[in-house]
């Protein structure tokens, strides 16, 4: 990073955008194949019931229906849905593709209809008669672990799915010698990811050659290709997975779903391509949910604000089944529970609990927002307890810049950091002193005005393979075509994050070619042979590095060719700005056009020189990265209605070196929007009978344009030593950093009334009630 680059670091507009804005991009539902049939899934209205019988005759008899399939028809022929992150003591039910003789959540697939179009398929669905016998339901995870609770899966004998603990340091001593101890329960409500494009897939089995192609709206075509063969019996080398344009994932498409296996299986069975497109209602009830942890937290600290230890007992509601990464989510919470602070003792005990609800799994931030929320709320609670400035409490507990790499109490090694720097910058650009004055004046005028901050750290660029279930590397391929155009293939499967732009920037710089000459391919396992896809803010740091490794190989090879053509030795060749020349003779240089021609025409090559200019690479990182930053928020609460208005939003993020600041700004803005939703209005509501009451956009609110405040955004740059470009990642930073900052601001606004803590979401009615109760006191 010593010489200035032509593209790296520049705010270049996304090359993806024109096709998206014009509406000419290809999503799964745009794929239309000859002879394609349409599938629709019948789902249980009951959260728990015996299936006494299913009558499909009338549905089968409807003109245009190719088949109606129930669990009895497919479960024996289609494998179980796997969980890729099992826990040692885990008890898990068999996750069949369709329900067997019981249903375990409202939305549980019971039957699938295949017909010539969606209208007929839906008509047929209405003709299926299922005889259910309702059984007792448990939808509250705290009740689920009580002795007399109904069981989610009676055959397991308990609702406890798994337990997991992480502990380090001398906890007892810390709590004993602490000046003060605070206890606080916090509820991390259940959220519905609600990607704008619901899920969907098209499966096409070729009876000619036994290959299966699956177009699916997924973040992880490569992981699907690893896992699906075991379910449908097509070998990996005859399976091609394509993730076309994906209209939002946020973790909800970081999964393998039964519909993908069902459509694949039925395409093989019926010999025709089959399309299934999820409805919004299905998306709400049968695509994974996020969060849903309830924790009791206890923190020990000294009068000067020094934190000694934190411990927590957490219940994680996993829903009815373990999806791909369900058990891993609360473990990420545990690993990040100490935040960006120095204290050395912690303990977290997690109990994963089954309930009759949709599974939880990774949703933007995946376990880290819970951790950050806890530790950042705790910092404010400590400040309130001691009457200290929340900024000072944080400063007292930060590791110094010189202490990095920093070993945390949870066993991680934070790569690099400058927490004081980010905090200072946020205070500076946000006008902290003026904001504090504004609060004073507002309070004097009788207004409920609050300032909140969060100084967060997260774990990204997941990750070294040793900590991952099936490889934490990333793969890439770069090819200089004969015409000297450059084809880049990434295994990282970006799906909206903008790497078609940033990877082109990286490769164009390294090769010294115009960005316009570089095309980035993604999302198709036929071209991107290997990959570990996009999640955990990993694509740029890992996928980008794999591409740099490719370029290095190509340049080394091209250097040999140039030496041969210039009648010199490779050691004497200089490569600069896309030109190869003999040291000291830059005027007599060879560019990629000539070298590519020679490499492929292959008539004048050095001895033992393989034709072509192509290289592929796997990058295996040594460590994760740990982006960090400070968000500052000011809010005003309407005393009469409980509504929260965000008056000021300041985000200073440090994600290491920045390939494209515009992309980073977009990622952080989107992340904050998700946080605004989580803090102020989003929640999945299940009633005590396991009915999802927020199953549509009529009842589940997402943040809209008018809800988004003007952001003041800035950054600090602390390169990561974990990868050669020094990149940390930023896909989830907004969601992780913003949630506690907004909540802290609201709690600060309410603090003059004696209100210490409110759980999310901070709905107007909840705030109004808290204010009313405070008045009574």
């Amino acid at each position, binding site marked *: 990073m010593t010489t200035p680059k032509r593209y790296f670091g520049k705010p270049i507009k996304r090359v993806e955008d024109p096709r998206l804005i014009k509406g000419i991009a290809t999503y799964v539902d745009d794929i239309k194949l000859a002879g394609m049939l349409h599938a629709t899934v019948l789902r249980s209205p009951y959260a728990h019931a015996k299936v006494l019988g299913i009558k499909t005759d009338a549905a089968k008899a409807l003109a245009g229906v190719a088949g109606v399939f129930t669990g009895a028809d497919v479960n024996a022929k289609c494998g179980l849905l796997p969980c890729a992150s099992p826990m040692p003591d885990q008890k898990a039910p068999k996750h069949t593709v369709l329900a067997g003789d019981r249903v375990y959540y409202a939305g549980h697939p019971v039957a699938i209809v295949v017909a010539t179009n969606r209208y007929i398929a839906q008509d047929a669905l209405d003709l299926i008669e299922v005889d259910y016998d309702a059984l007792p339901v448990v939808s509250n995870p705290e009740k689920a672990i009580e002795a007399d609770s109904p069981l989610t899966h009676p055959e397991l004998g308990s609702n406890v799915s798994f337990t997991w603990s992480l502990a380090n340091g001398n906890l007892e001593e810390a709590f004993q010698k602490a000046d003060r101890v605070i206890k606080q329960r916090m509820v991390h409500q259940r959220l519905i990811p609600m990607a704008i494009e619901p899920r969907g897939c098209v499966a096409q089995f070729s009876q000619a050659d036994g290959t299966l192609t699956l177009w699916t709206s997924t973040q992880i075509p490569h992981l699907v290709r690893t896992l699906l063969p075991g379910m449908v019996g097509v070998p990996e080398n005859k399976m091609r997975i394509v993730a076309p344009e994906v209209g939002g994932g946020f973790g909800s498409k970081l999964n393998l779903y039964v519909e993908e296996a069902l459509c694949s299986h039925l395409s093989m069975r019926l010999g025709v391509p089959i399309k299934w497109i999820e409805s919004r209602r299905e998306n709400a009830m049968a695509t994974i949910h996020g969060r849903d942890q309830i924790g009791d937290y206890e923190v020990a600290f000294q009068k000067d604000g020094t934190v000694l230890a934190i411990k927590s007992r957490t219940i994680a509601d996993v829903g009815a089944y373990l999806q791909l990464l369900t058990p891993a989510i609360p473990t990420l919470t545990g690993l990040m529970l100490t935040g960006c602070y120095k204290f050395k003792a912690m303990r977290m005990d997690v109990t994963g609990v089954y309930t009759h609800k949709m599974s939880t799994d990774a949703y933007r931030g995946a376990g880290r927002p819970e951790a950050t929320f806890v530790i950042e709320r705790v910092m404010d609670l400590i400040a309130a307890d001691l009457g200290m400035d929340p900024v000072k409490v944080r400063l007292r507990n930060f590791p110094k810049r010189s202490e990095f790499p920093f070993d945390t109490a949870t066993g991680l090694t934070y790569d690099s950091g400058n927490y004081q720097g980010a905090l200072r910058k946020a205070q500076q650009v946000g006008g902290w002193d003026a904001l504090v004055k504004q609060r004073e004046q507002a309070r004097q005028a009788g207004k409920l005005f609050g300032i909140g901050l969060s100084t967060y750290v997260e774990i990204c660029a997941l990750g070294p393979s040793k900590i991952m279930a099936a490889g934490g590397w990333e793969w890439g391929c770069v090819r200089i075509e004969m015409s000297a155009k450059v084809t880049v293939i990434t295994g990282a499967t970006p799906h909206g994050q903008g790497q078609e732009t940033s990877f082109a920037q990286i490769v164009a710089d390294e090769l010294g070619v115009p960005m316009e000459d570089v095309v980035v391919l993604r999302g198709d396992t036929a071209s991107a042979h290997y990959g570990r896809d996009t999640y955990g803010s990993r694509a740029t740091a890992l996928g980008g590095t794999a591409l740099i490794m490719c370029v290095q190989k190509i340049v080394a090879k091209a250097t040999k060719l140039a030496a041969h053509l210039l009648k010199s030795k490779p050691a004497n060749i200089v490569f600069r700005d896309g030109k190869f020349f003999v040291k000291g003779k830059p005027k007599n240089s060879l560019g990629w056009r000539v070298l590519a021609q020679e490499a492929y025409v292959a008539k004048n090559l050095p001895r033992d020189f393989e034709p072509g200019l192509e290289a592929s690479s796997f990058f295996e990182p040594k460590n994760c990265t740990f982006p960090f930053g400070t968000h500052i928020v000011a809010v005003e609460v309407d005393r009469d209605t409980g509504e929260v208005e965000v008056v000021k939003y300041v985000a200073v993020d440090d994600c290491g070196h920045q390939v494209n600041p515009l992309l980073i700004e977009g990622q952080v803005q989107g992340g904050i929007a998700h946080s605004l939703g989580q803090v102020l209005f989003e929640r999945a509501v299940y009633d005590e009978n396991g009915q999802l009451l927020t199953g549509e956009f009529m*009842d589940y609110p997402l943040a809209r344009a008018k809800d988004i405040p003007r952001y003041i955004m800035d950054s600090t740059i602390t390169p990561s030593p974990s990868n050669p470009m020094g990149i940390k990642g930023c896909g989830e930073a907004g969601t992780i950093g913003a949630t506690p900052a907004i909540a802290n601001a609201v709690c600060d606004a309410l603090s003059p009334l004696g209100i210490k803590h409110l759980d999310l979401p901070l709905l107007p009615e909840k705030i*109004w009630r808290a204010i009313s109760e405070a008045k009574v006191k």
Partner: protein
Amino acid sequence: MIPSAFEYLRPQTFDDAINLFAQHGENAKILAGGHSLIPTMKLRLAQPKVLIDLGRIADLNYIREQDGKIAVGAMATHHQIETSELLREKCPLLCEVAPQIGDVQVRNRGTIGGSLAHADPAADWPAAILALDAELEVAGPDGARVIQAKKFFVDLFQTALKPNELLREIRLPATSKAVAYVKFAQRASGFAIAGAAVVIRPESKAVGIGITGVAAKAYRATASEKKLEGQPLASENIAAAADKASNRVEALNDIHASADFRKHLARVNTKRALELAAARAER
């Protein structure tokens, strides 16, 4: 999200629409924008066999002055109302309500008549129509009649329309600028949890107050209105009147707001709307 099959009819005149509606009876639903009906059909909660689209009836879509009143055709869209110069001048309350309905797409398609006839307990128009003492002209096979706004809303999704009648026109009095609509919206749907529409009639020293979102049907806050009758619009009078805005109302209760909160918000928004309208009266 796929509706069941239906027959689609598109009458060209209002009389044709009445005839078709009479002919198909309860098998038919009227399409007047469709922003409540179509979602219900896509979920197959509604499966009408016949859809009668009023969208092409030219003489149902107008906003004009007529016999000293403002006449709004049932098929006038929210957007047309929002941007009507005539209404801004003569009946500004409607221009204040319209932009608070749904979003741009909804306002471009949804119609005032469709909304009123649907009688959603949380729709915005009913509050305004009540506060303004509007008249609604309806017509069926047996001819036309006029229903006063306060008699139009009967119960949850239930109006004084007979099963074979259609709403044709909404007639509004001209008002001063001393009007206001203050709404607390449900986050997801945008429907009112409590919306208060206020019309101050300086000439008669009276106010009209319509409340929506709070009860099973929109209502006139008559206790509040009486409290202000003949009184100056001083802040203590306004507060005392607003305090009665949800007296004796059986309020709705759902996951978005409890009955208590709705009643509270009805008081708050009535006060705010009265203050706003009073301030506009002074200008």
